[in-house]
């Protein structure tokens, strides 16, 4: 895999992977990735969930994350696909019911361009963190602070409990508690 690829491109390629295209129904969007280390390798877990536009501008119903796809950063190889409907920790989750309403409080004031820019900044910080985890680059306290701030601005609050269940180490380090709005 080209080492210059960024996380955004990595996720885009993952979505077009034949495994994803076969297992994940249309309409499921990729959420913010979870990073982890397995057997000393950086892994990227991409959650997939549905949302539905409704009759108000900037109001979309958010549904629980249903699928996750985990791949090795270095090679892009998919190492795990999960349908959470069959996962014991999610047996009480009703995936057909909405849990949140986009846009959430922390991005209310952004226009489309500003929102896109914040997402791009967040993905840049993801790239920095991945480079650090790969032992390729330095990573400062400032970088961590910036990543944490951006992540918690962009991340939909109603999805936080699911992120904690999917990646406790990542969530504990980077996701702050906030209530859904």
């Amino acid at each position, binding site marked *: 895999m080209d080492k210059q690829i960024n996380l955004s491109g990595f996720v885009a390629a993952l979505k077009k992977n034949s495994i994803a295209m076969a297992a994940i129904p*249309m309409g499921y969007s990729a959420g913010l990735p979870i990073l982890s280390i397995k057997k000393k390798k950086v892994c990227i877990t991409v959650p997939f969930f549905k949302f539905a536009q409704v009759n108000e501008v900037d109001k979309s119903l958010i549904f629980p994350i249903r699928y996750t796809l985990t791949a090795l950063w270095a090679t892009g190889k998919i190492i795990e696909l999960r349908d959470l409907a069959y996962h014991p920790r999610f047996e009480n989750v009703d995936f057909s019911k*909405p849990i949140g309403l986009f846009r959430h409080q922390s991005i209310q004031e952004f226009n489309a361009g500003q929102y896109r820019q914040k997402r791009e900044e967040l993905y840049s910080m993801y790239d920095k963190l991945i480079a650090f985890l790969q032992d390729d680059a330095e990573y400062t306290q400032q970088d961590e602070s910036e990543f944490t701030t951006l992540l918690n601005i962009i991340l939909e609050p109603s999805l936080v409990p699911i992120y904690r269940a999917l990646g406790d180490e990542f969530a504990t380090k980077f996701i702050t508690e906030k209530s859904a709005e």
Partner: protein
Amino acid sequence: MFDAFTAQFAVANANTDADTIGTGAGLDGGGINEAVLVYSDTDIDELFDTQQMLSDIDGGNVYDTIESFSDSEDIGYDDQITAEADVTADDIADIILHDIDVDGDGVFDIRIEEFHLDVNGDGHIDTVIFSADEDNDGFFETLEIYQDQDEDGMFELVLPEGVELEYIDPSGYSVDFDMDVFPNYNPDASHINHEAVVGDPDASMQHWEFQGDTNRCALHAQQFIIEELTGNEIDIEEFEQIAQENGWFDDGTSQQFMNKMLDYYGIENEMTMNNDLSDISECLNNGGKVIVAIDADEVWYPDNGSVIFAPDNPNHAVEVIGVDYTDPTNPMVILNDSGHPDGCGSMIPADQFVDAWNDSGCQMIAAY
């Protein structure tokens, strides 16, 4: 400071020479051996393979720590080290640490830690925390908690708590379709040059159905085609059931399975990516039928001003039933769109359609 070796002992088994010897040492001059070193030949091969150090760390005149060093493979050095500590002085090890060199390269590969706890304070161990670093990278890949909750002496694995979510009431929100968002094909419209219309949209429109609040778009698109090509009506409920039973539909259809019902009904078809409008036109010109995957938000809500949450997301399947080239500078793509209540023969400007189609990689199913 060691004073004298105050005791040496040897234990012989019934058949050989001594297989266990020990030596004790006093460390604080108090006349009590704070440490005892025991060598054992556990596999009775006349080589001492295990040594244990029993220590009285807290000076309570009771051995509270045991460290075991074992050369389990007789390779000349210790490949397993176990340390047990009785921190509560109840003669039961509370903390047990294992280091294991699996491949005999002199480097410990696995670290296992166990903590035995009396959580309810009744004097019996009721909780064991087990963690393992299986590749010695400092990260414990396994963390398990076992509890004897019913005090039957059997420890059961405690599973992580299930995820509980708060749901919102969607009744205040609805999908309000704009019934004027696009025109519909009217074969009787005077402005249409029928010579310039590719496909037979009028015939195809007879088979359109609205999918309602379901995710059956890909099923409907296939249903429309099968009905038109075979002349047989299809019950969508039965159609869905077949798809479900075969794993091709689970609250939606994946891009890879958008043609499976065509296969099931023996309709010849081909799925390809990276197509363009000319590919669609060619198929329709040849009497074929076309299904594509698009981002429906770009068709249904082109200008609603929302901050789009997930751009470039294929979320819908439609049948393309024609292309109207009456105005060659502004071709209109004609759809049978089951997802919109006004989707029968809906007409979308080609540029807008291609934008929405791009999000699926211009996936196309050509059926004959």
